[in-house]
């Protein structure tokens, strides 16, 4: 900054403006951090939603696995129930037992159908269910054949059929098939449960990390804002100090300017007074010169007329404009003096000016406009500027006017 009162130097580079310690990029930094925070939040939210969807799918798989286990268990239990009811029918011949057996076998078929549908996407499990279906159907067909024999009242055939029945082995095979399927489904359950557990752990870790990261980012934003506020406080303090300094300089300079102005006013007043005095003196002197009856000529060193008084005009009849700038010789000529040899070709007046001498009461002739001459006495005073003669004042005291014309 250019100090107040100092003159600006056009060739000098202006100093840099006052540097305030304000961090203008704080807003940009805070915005970036908030963008990151929102990005992390969005990422965590998207991940959480995806995890929920995965958890839903995983839950569906677990439910389906349980459903498969229930259905194959249902196959075994209803088959047993049906066979029990059928054996009761064989003993009692009560058709309600036969109906109960058939109801149970129908439910067995339902369980098999559902199990088949549930294992469609698992080739191995589906093959086992098909095998289970085959075993179950064979037992149901065997039971129906027994029912037919019982309805035909062929007790011997029924007894023979029961005796040769490998029912225990067949049911055992079905039970083993069910157990194997159940074990595999339980293993699947364990695997899916472990996967679900790991997924939950991963989700906890990611959500926790995201939340922690956001807390850190919020802390960073807080720190940035706090730092910025401190910087702004420092800037305000610096600005206040600069303003105070500036005010002091302005006050000081104003005082100086007021003093200078007062001094200039006084000087102007004095100068005006001096000029007025000079003008008065000049007019007074002019009046004195104009009042002199003798002819007054102000001459240059080359004897040209630069000023005259009214007596010249009055005596010679020339206007001032005709004489000013012209040679003195046109109006005044010194008479020759035998006792004083003329050393200068320009005459004794020029010689006296060159020598810096005065001439006193020298005889001369004044010629007016009409050529008439008048005898006169002239006195010359050299005019000096310091020690150098710059001109002279010629005073002509005329005696009388000649009646003789110039021509």
């Amino acid at each position, binding site marked *: 900054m250019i100090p107040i009162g100092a003159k600006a130097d056009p060739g000098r580079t202006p100093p840099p403006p006052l540097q305030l310690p304000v961090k203008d990029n704080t807003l940009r930094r805070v915005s970036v951090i908030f963008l990151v925070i929102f990005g992390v939040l969005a990422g965590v939210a998207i991940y959480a939603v995806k995890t929920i969807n995965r958890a839903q799918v995983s839950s569906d798989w677990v439910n389906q696995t349980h459903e498969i286990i229930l259905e194959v268990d249902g196959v075994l239990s209803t088959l047993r129930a049906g066979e029990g009811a059928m054996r009761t029918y064989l003993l009692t011949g009560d058709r309600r037992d036969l109906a109960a057996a058939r109801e149970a076998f129908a439910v067995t078929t339902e369980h098999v*159908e559902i199990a088949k549908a549930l294992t469609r996407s698992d080739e191995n499990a589906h093959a086992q269910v098909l095998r289970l279906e085959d075993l179950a159907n064979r037992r149901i067909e065997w039971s129906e054949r027994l029912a037919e024999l019982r309805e035909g009242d062929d007790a011997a055939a029924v007894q023979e059929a029961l005796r040769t029945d490998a029912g225990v082995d067949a049911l055992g095979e079905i039970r083993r098939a069910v157990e194997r399927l159940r074990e595999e489904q339980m293993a699947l359950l364990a695997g899916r449960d472990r996967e679900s557990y790991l997924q939950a752990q991963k989700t906890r870790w990611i959500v926790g990390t995201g939340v922690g990261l956001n807390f850190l980012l919020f802390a960073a934003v807080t720190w940035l804002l706090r730092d910025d506020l401190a910087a702004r406080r420092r800037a305000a303090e610096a600005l206040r100090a600069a303003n105070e300094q500036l005010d002091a300089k302005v006050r000081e300079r104003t005082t100086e300017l007021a003093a200078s102005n007062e001094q200039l006013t006084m000087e102007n007043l004095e100068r005006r007074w001096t000029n007025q005095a000079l003008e008065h003196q000049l007019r007074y002197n002019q009046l004195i010169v104009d009042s002199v009856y003798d002819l007054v000529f102000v001459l240059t060193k080359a004897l040209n007329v630069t000023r005259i008084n009214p007596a010249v005009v009055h005596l010679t009849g020339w206007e001032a404009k005709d004489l000013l700038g012209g040679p003195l010789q046109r109006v005044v000529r010194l008479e020759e003096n035998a006792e004083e040899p003329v050393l200068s070709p320009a005459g004794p007046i020029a010689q006296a000016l060159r020598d810096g001498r005065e001439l006193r009461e020298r005889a001369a002739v004044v010629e007016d406009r009409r050529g008439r001459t008048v005898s006169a006495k002239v006195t010359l005073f050299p005019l000096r500027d310091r020690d150098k003669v710059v001109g002279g004042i010629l005073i002509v005291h005329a005696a009388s006017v000649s009646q003789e014309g110039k021509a």
Partner: protein
Amino acid sequence: MNNDLMPPLSTGAKLRRAALACLAGFVAAAGAAEVTLEKLLNDPKLTPKRFANHFEDFDYEYHVYVQPAEKFLAARAGDCDDYAVLADHVLKQKGFNTRLIHVRMVGLVAHAVCYVTESKAYLDYNNRKYTVNLEKSGATLREIANKVAGSMEANWTSATEFTYSYAEDRKKMGITVVKTEPPANDPDRRKG
């Protein structure tokens, strides 16, 4: 009434149904006359909605097997199978295209509903007490299963279309949709 076997209802459904309970009560009181299979079959104006209105004051009573129609109507108590099978039996004879659907949900007995193609809605025994006793739904098994399971705030595992005749007293299982399979592989969608 066996409330332990009654499938749970969603909160929204409970509120909606509670709000409509009073109105349903008036309607039920007005139409509480005894209903028989013959009366239903001979009703010339029978619609799915009109059919459902007869069961507003029926109680819930679980049976392992489907009750005969007259027994169910006389006892005025039964379960979802009894109601859906009867609806299928009656409405089919009235010219409606109906489908019986079993929806299996976790921890619950399989829930049966009767879907009426013309109404684009299913009849659900859980809705019998309310004015809105027809539940709108898409026609695929997956859509119906989602709707039914959603109304009971449960996850479904599979849904099966089945048929039943009182004469044979047997359920015949049809196509089954499994929730974990891609919807594009659903048997009813492939068929459609």
